[in-house]
Structure formats: structure tokens, C-alpha cells
């Protein structure tokens, strides 16, 4: 090695200080980043302490939202959040599974590229824009659909109610639309995990694509679908802007599928800026804490399932 390069590379103090400083920086940043979620949790917890201290378990037993009298019932927004997430996830799966199958089996080349672009574009629309669109082009027309549903399925108690432009139903429609791209991409990934030679063996037996899908693909991705369900459930529950714009903000349990109500996120978004007392603000932080834990648990379940199933892949 030429003397000059050797000097640059091996000049002891320079090398030593440079080396350790940079690695120290890396480690510091890593520790800082690790502390971010912990910091979020701690901030939420500290701020919800007054509410926990003053209201205790009563937030889980009352169905009442009365900030003036310090009466807060968390149970109804919590249930509504979960309900919205679950309904949207299943409605979304009904649409996204066929799309994923179409993209992976029934289309090639340009058609496949076109529909993939559609899915990507749908995923990249900010939720506030979707909310804006829904306010002006979905909400005014949604009562017609609601009337049809009420006439057809009115015998089910929860589906019998007065139509309203803003409410659970409108929110569910828009959130379903938002979940479709996420679910489609995830299911497509699952399908690529199916061993190629099994599919080829199936084709060589003369089976049709539908039979391959029904007897090979669907059984194979069944367990992975549970993970997809939990992942999109988490996405549906944490969605804020479209929900806050469409759900109607009435923090009580909904009378029917069509009535306005509120989720954890929409209550925080709409009432945080106008919380007038310490307890009120603290309750909103408690809602955030509950949401945080809810989404965390859902995500962890999804990841555990994925890890158990596809350890080798």
C-alpha cells in the first residue's frame, strides 16, 4: 500500500476518534428512536392520570357524554370504533379479495398494470380529500341507499332507523374504500407465497383457474387472511380525518346503522381544541391511550400470526 493512503487510513488518533464518534452518533440516534413510542405512551398515560384518578372505572360503565357535569362514557365510542373497523374490514375483504385474485391470475401486462395503478392511486389519496369528496358527493345521496336497506332488511333491529347524511353508514362506506388498496396489496403478497410448483402441478392436471383458486389458493392463504384482517382492522380503527368529517359527532351509542355517532378518533379530533376543563382534556388523552393500546394489540396479533405462519419465508 502506498505510504500516503496508509497514513490516511491508519493514522491512529484520527482513525480512532472518527470511528468511535460516528458509531456513538448511530447508537445515540437508535436509542432516541427506540424511546419515541415509549415517550408517546408515557405522555398519554401521565395526561390521562387525572381522568383515571377522578373517574376511575366509571368511564367504562356509563353511556353518557356530558363534559359540563364531568360525566364521560368511553364504552360507546370504543364499541363504535371496533364496530366500524370490523364492518369495514369485512366489506373491504369482499371487494379486495376478488381484485387481488384478478390481479394475480386473470390479468397480465397492461391490464394488470392499469389496475395496479388504480389501487396505488386510491392508496395515495389523503383521507382529508376523501372526506371532502364524501361530504359533497356521497353524503347527499346516501339516504337513498339507506332507504333501500331499511326496506329490505328492516326486520333486523339495528338496520331500522331514520336515514341521515352523516353517520355510521357513510363513514363505513368511505373507510371501506380506504381499506381496499391496503388489503389488496397484502392479499397479493400472500398469494405470491403459495408455492409456484403446486400451482403449475394443478394446471398440468387440467384444472381451471377457478378450481385452483378454490382448492389451492384460498386454503393456503386462509390463515394469512387472519393477519390481513387484523392489520386492516388497525388501519380502520386509527383512521381520523374522514371519520371526523363524516360520522356526525354524537358521542352516544348509535340507535341504528344510519344514525350519527362518534369514534375514539373523531371525539379527539373534534373536541380536543375546545376541552375546557382539566378532567375533560384528561379524558381525551385517556381516549388516545385506549386507542393506542387497542391499535397496538391488534397490530401485535397480526404480526404474531404472520411470524408463526411464515417463519421460513
Amino acid at each position, binding site marked *: 500500500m502506498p505510504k500516503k*493512503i496508509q497514513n490516511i*487510513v491508519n493514522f491512529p488518533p484520527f*482513525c480512532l476518534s*472518527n*470511528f468511535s464518534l*460516528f*458509531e456513538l452518533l*448511530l447508537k445515540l*440516534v*437508535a*436509542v*432516541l*428512536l*427506540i424511546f*419515541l*413510542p415509549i415517550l408517546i405512551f408515557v405522555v*398519554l398515560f401521565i395526561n390521562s392520570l387525572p381522568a383515571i384518578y377522578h373517574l376511575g372505572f366509571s368511564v367504562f360503565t356509563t353511556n353518557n357524554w356530558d363534559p359540563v357535569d364531568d360525566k364521560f362514557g368511553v364504552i360507546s365510542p370504543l364499541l363504535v370504533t371496533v364496530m366500524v373497523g370490523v364492518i369495514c374490514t369485512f366489506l373491504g375483504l369482499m371487494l379486495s379479495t*376478488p*381484485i387481488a*385474485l*384478478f390481479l394475480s391470475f*386473470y390479468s397480465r401486462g397492461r391490464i394488470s398494470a*392499469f*389496475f395496479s*395503478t*388504480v*389501487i*396505488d*392511486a*386510491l392508496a*395515495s*389519496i*389523503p*383521507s*382529508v*380529500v*376523501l372526506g*371532502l*369528496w364524501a*361530504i*359533497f358527493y356521497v353524503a347527499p345521496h346516501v339516504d337513498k341507499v339507506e332507504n333501500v336497506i331499511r326496506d329490505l332488511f328492516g326486520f333486523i333491529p339495528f338496520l331500522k332507523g331514520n336515514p341521515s347524511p352523516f353517520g355510521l353508514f357513510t363513514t363505513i362506506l368511505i373507510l371501506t374504500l380506504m381499506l*381496499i388498496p391496503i388489503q389488496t*396489496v397484502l392479499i397479493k403478497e400472500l398469494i405470491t407465497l403459495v408455492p409456484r410448483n403446486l400451482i403449475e402441478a394443478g394446471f398440468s392436471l387440467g384444472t381451471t383457474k*377457478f*378450481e385452483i383458486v378454490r382448492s389451492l389458493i384460498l386454503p393456503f392463504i386462509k390463515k394469512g387472511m387472519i393477519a390481513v384482517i387484523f392489520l386492516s382492522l*388497525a388501519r380502520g*380503527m*386509527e383512521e*381520523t*380525518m374522514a371519520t371526523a*368529517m363524516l360520522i356526525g359527532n354524537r358521542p352516544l351509542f348509535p340507535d341504528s346503522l344510519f344514525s350519527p355517532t362518534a369514534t375514539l378518533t373523531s371525539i*379527539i*379530533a373534534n373536541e380536543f*381544541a375546545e376541552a375546557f376543563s382539566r378532567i375533560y382534556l384528561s379524558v381525551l388523552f385517556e381516549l*388516545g391511550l385506549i*386507542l*393506542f393500546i387497542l391499535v*397496538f394489540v391488534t*397490530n401485535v396479533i397480526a*404480526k404474531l400470526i404472520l411470524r408463526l405462519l411464515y417463519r421460513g419465508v
Partner: protein
Amino acid sequence: MRVIIDKIFQIFTLSVAIFVSIILIFILFQLIKDGISSLSLNFFIESARPVGSNSGGFKQAILGSLIIDSIAMLIIVFLSILGGLFLYVYPETLLSKILKESMSLLQGTPTIVCGICVYYILVRSMGHFSGLAGSVALALVGIPYMVLASEQIFSMTPTLLLEAAYSLGLSRTRVILYVVLKFAKFPLLAISLLTLARIAGETAPLLFTAFGNSFLELNPLRPMAAIPLQIYVYAISPYDEWHRLAWAGALILIAFVTVLSLILGRYRRLGE
């Protein structure tokens, strides 16, 4: 019979795909129709005006978004590249496993929760809302994507280059600075732009941090307007004028986000 069932199923899946595409085209069509009709030069050179003045624009929101997003991107790029390098340099250590888990935890954190946490940490202690707090909240949202994506990009560095560099006797720091970072320059730019596209449309973290402002404000230590915030405020207002402005703002926002994410489609899936 089997073939017929197959065909029916094929048509069924195709029609679902077409159905979703029609909804998207519907959204885009109405967005462009309502957006273009209210887009004018005033939209870019005027700040918000009171209702009834028949003018007013998004100048303060556009500039505010620009400032908030640039500060957020500075924080994100700086921390995420270092975080990604850490994951790359110490791949199997305990710390890097914890870092990965905590990043995916942060990724799953509801954005509004990030917003209220930053409200407590920054807004409370400063005594007023500020654009800077908005940037920090956006950074919390963007960091996990970029850390995970940049780690994936660093791990694509060809072993051949690394071995060549090490065989010259370069220290690890120098290899990282001269070889790994240089090799990853363009992919890193791409994922930073994608992260920008992702945070540019975020509204929830800004609600209680940047808060919005009807006047032009260039000092990031004061409350600032941002495009998504302004869209939200105008969308839920009762005035037709403001609705039109909201549509124009949404068109600008979506043009920015969609163009960025479609150009960089190749890198889209990184970091998820």
C-alpha cells in the same frame, strides 16, 4: 360446465376491479371538475379572506405547508438515515431488533395520538401552537417508514463494492460514508420524496400542533396554516365560497401527492 364457472368467476373479479376503478375515476373527475373551476391566480397569491369578499386563496396554507413539511423532512431524513444505518451496521444485535419493533410500533400509532402527544410536549411548554410542533408531529408519522425503507436500501449495497472497500483498508466509518451512502444516494432521495408524499396529506397530526392560521405566517414558532388543515376547515364550513377553495386546495394536494407516488412507483413498497 367447469369452464363456464371459471369464466363467470373471471368476469366477477373483473367487474369488482372495474367497479373500484370507476369509483376512483369518479373521485378524480369530480375533484378536477370542482378544483379547476375554482382555481385561479388569486388562489396562489392571496391569503384567506372573510366570507363574502368573493376572493381569497391558499397562499398562507401553501407557504405554511412548504415550511412545515421541509422542517419535518429535515428531521425525518437526518434521524432516519442514521437509524437505518444503525440497523444496517449492527443487523442482529438486541438493540437493532428492539429498534425495528419500536419502529413498527410507531408506524401503527394512530396519527392523531402523535398529534396530541406533541401538543403536550411542545405546545404546552411553549404556550402557543406553532408550525414547528406541526413539523415534529409529522416527523413522528414519517420516521418509521423511512427508517425501515432506508435499512432495506442500505442492505442492497453490492457485497463486491463493500469487500473492495474493506480490502483497501478503509475503516467501517469510511466505508459507510464513501461507499454505502454514495451507492444509496438516489434510492434515498426517492424514498424521502415518497415519505414527503405520505406526510403532505396528513391532517390529524397538525390539528392541535400547527393549528392553522388565516394570515400569512412565515415564522415556524407561530401558529401556521397548512394545505390539508385548510381543506379540513373549509370543508366542514357552511359557506359555498370556502367549499370551492377547499376543492381547489384538494386538487393541488392530490396532484402533488399522486404525481410523486406514481413517478416513484418502483420504491413504493419499501418500508411497509
